[in-house]
């Protein structure tokens, strides 16, 4: 494994732990992260947490399932390793198996990028946006969204047998 690949694996580990351990607040859509509560850079496993290098603005209110939502991401200057990445994580239990990966950038104005995500699960949804800098700094933000039912763009809706209930 080369150095950048090893760094990326470490960063993904940090990213996923951030999704699981952040304390969500769903009273309103907000754009903050646990890491953002401190502006100081901290080190872990050779990677510097640099929350002040990224800020994200999300939409106010509920967002529709399966429909594009725009987030505004502002990055600090510096060379990035790879791309701006997105991970969706449902705190209700199941995480969507889609809707993550390299961010889809729809507009760019210098260091400010407008990205588009498509919420892939209903209810409270954490969207982690992160970037890795060439100096091994890891910048991340979590946006909390509340995803609601929406027929727009719906190609097919069907009732099925559902998930099995708890075994007794």
């Amino acid at each position, binding site marked *: 494994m080369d150095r950048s690949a090893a760094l990326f694996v470490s960063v993904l580990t940090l990213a996923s732990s951030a999704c699981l351990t952040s304390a969500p607040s769903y009273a309103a859509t907000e754009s903050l992260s646990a890491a953002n509560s401190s502006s100081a850079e901290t080190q872990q496993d050779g990677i510097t947490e640099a929350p002040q290098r990224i800020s994200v603005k999300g939409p106010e209110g509920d967002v529709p*399932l*399966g*429909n*594009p939502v725009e987030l505004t991401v502002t990055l600090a200057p510096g060379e990035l390793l790879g791309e701006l990445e997105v991970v969706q994580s*449902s705190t*209700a*239990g*199941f995480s*969507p*198996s*889609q*809707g993550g990966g390299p961010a889809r950038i729809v507009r760019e104005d210098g260091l400010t990028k407008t990205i588009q995500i*498509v919420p*892939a*699960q*209903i*209810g409270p949804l954490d969207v982690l946006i992160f970037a890795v800098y060439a100096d091994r700094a890891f910048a991340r933000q979590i946006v909390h969204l509340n995803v*609601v*039912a*929406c*027929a727009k*763009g*719906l*190609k*097919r*809706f*069907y*009732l*099925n047998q*559902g*998930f099995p*209930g708890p075994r007794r």
Partner: protein
Amino acid sequence: MEYKDLKYPIYLNDSSQIKLSVQQDEANPVIRVDKNGMVHALRKGKAVIVGDFDGVIDRIAVSVYTKEGAPAGYRRVHD
């Protein structure tokens, strides 16, 4: 459900945003659907569950059998 902007189908974590109703004899119901979407059999018979997702409708037919009258594939071998 399937959306044009998503590559794969979505299976919802919970059914709380689907309005579920049942078409059956209300005086003598065959099933009851609880708030979690779990179907409870009340007596032998047939019913139709209607799901409304933001105005888009789907229906599924439900048949409730007695333990003795269930088709072979539905019978328990051991209790």
